[in-house]
């Protein structure tokens, strides 16, 4: 138990900030990130699979992606616009902000429709901007495979977004 405790708290120290940021990016909501981060680490603490994970950081990363999209799925109402903490939008007008936020929600919603592997790969590649090699290492697959998953996912995303191009 002590060893597990050390492991989970160490993970919080080292991977907590990037996981926190990732949850923010995938939800685009600063007001829910705190709860999601807590939920994530409590899940990890209670997960037997986490104990067996070869790479705890990678496992936590995938769990965070899963959790964020699970949260998105539960959101029945329209997602809110980007909040004040989104620095990238600070210079935009209110209308521009709304349009941009809508666009981002569309692509995130489309991503949530991908299968788990494709979704994880897309998030790691395009949002977290990791290399194919790094993603392959985390997911236990070859970089070529990741590249292929990315290409197929992108094609699927285009289809999804075409369907919903309002």
């Amino acid at each position, binding site marked *: 138990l002590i060893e597990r405790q050390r492991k989970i708290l160490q993970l919080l120290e080292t991977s907590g900030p990037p996981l926190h*940021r990732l949850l923010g990016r995938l939800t685009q909501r600063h007001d829910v990130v705190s709860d999601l981060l807590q939920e994530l680490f409590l*899940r990890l603490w209670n997960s037997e699979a986490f104990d067996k994970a070869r790479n705890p950081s990678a496992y936590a990363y995938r769990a965070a992606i899963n959790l964020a999209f699970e949260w998105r799925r539960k959101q029945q109402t329209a997602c809110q616009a980007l909040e004040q903490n989104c620095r990238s939008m600070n210079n935009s007008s209110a209308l521009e902000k709304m349009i941009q936020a809508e666009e981002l929600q569309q692509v995130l919603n489309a991503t949530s429709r991908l299968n788990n592997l494709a979704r994880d790969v897309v998030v790691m590649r395009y949002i977290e901007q990791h290399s194919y090699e790094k993603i392959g290492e985390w997911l236990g697959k070859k970089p070529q495979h990741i590249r292929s998953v990315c290409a197929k996912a992108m094609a699927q995303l285009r289809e999804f977004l075409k369907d919903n191009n309002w």
Partner: protein
Amino acid sequence: MPEIDEKEIERRFKAISQFELEPEITIRDLKRTRESLTGQISKQQARTKKIWRTIMKSPLTKLATAAVIVIGTMIVIHYFTGSFDGSSIALGQVIEDVNGIIENMKRMPWVVKTYREPQGVTLEEWFCFEREYWIAKTPAGAVVSYNYAEGRKYDYNPDANSITIASLHKGDSSYSSFSSPRAILESLYELVMNKSTKPQTKISRERSRYKGMDVEILKIAFSTNERKYRTDLFIDTKRKVLIRELCNITDSSGKTVLNYEEEFNYPEKGPADIYALGVPRTANVIDKTDVTLAKRTEDPTLVALDITLPKPMFAGTPQDNRVENLEKPLGKPRPPFLAPAGTKNVALGKPVSSSDEEPIIGQLDMITDGDKEAPDGSYVELGPFPQQVTIDLGAIHKIYAVVVWHYHKQPRVYFDVVVQVTDDKYFITNVKTLFNNDIDNSAGLGAGKDLHYIETNEGKLIDAKGVKARYVRLYSNGNINNDLNHYIEVEVYGKPVE
């Protein structure tokens, strides 16, 4: 709207990736998570220290631990070194004193020991040597008692609000390592002797006052290869009994392994039974004693299945008038299900396939991973319309029961629940239906006459009557809340066919 090509998608992803949170928000959230995690860990640590395991099996937290350490240490010193620190007290006197202390404690009508760790872990134990009775309570409200005179163990689980009564077999390690409360002392004596191989022991004694009493404090320090032990024993000089112990154990690097305080009190009266320690009278009683089970069945080879239930997420079993053909709630825990000895969950860890190979939430292997708890992260969500999951037991088994938990966070009813078994992986031949509540044949597997039921933490137990099969398939078709299908866990109780 711009044309949504690959570049546009990448542009949007890039915008998403530029979302940053203020550093102070990150620091705040990390702090909250750390606190939340620490709270959870402490809670789990408290639970992990199951009283019966901690107290009855660990040599460090038993009654009069410290007193026995003294004897054990002294004897070891005598055997291995023949001497001890020059500033310490006379060996013979200490042994004599401690022997007397233990005998005095045994003569007390009741001994209450309260164990505390700085992290907040507390345990309360009551001993009655005359009645051969021991009872303990954790902060979480769990109560366990060993009545050696009656040969019974009582175990109250506050989460399930149930009391399990089991037979207490002397010498049976599954119930107790000891045959009586007195045996705890004797056993400790041996344990400490065996463990202390190279002591560098120092003992001193001093007079003091504690809680208005004159006390003598025996300060003992000794080492083994891996540990350093320090313990202070507070002896009530009037009654000659132990009233307090402070203990600190460190590893070879000086890091604290265990740090605790124990207080001993000697009341005239103690709890008559587990109800006296706060167990509600309304708690459900599950009697698993040998006598009761033997009466319950004419076949003595049958035993009650040991089905561990997850934590309930709502109280009682509500009725739902929207669903026709609904099973009336039992209003009490499900009675034990009897099956031949050796029957176990043969689905644990077995591969699962499904009509929906890409679940919306979770993974299919979660259905047989042993996690039956209701919170998010424990369930698999399959798509709408009729869906099935199939468990491959790997070989033909004689199946006595199938227990399924769809989703028990809310009192839901799942529709068209059908459970089939076969030895044919294509489910074409030898298919036997164990349960079917699809009253209008909407799933197309034939109309069933079984009742709808409300999901609870008990899961649905389906009597398989010893059918022989390798594959178990479970269908469902949405629930009263939505069109989706969920599974938390499926257990298949059986035995391999010889």
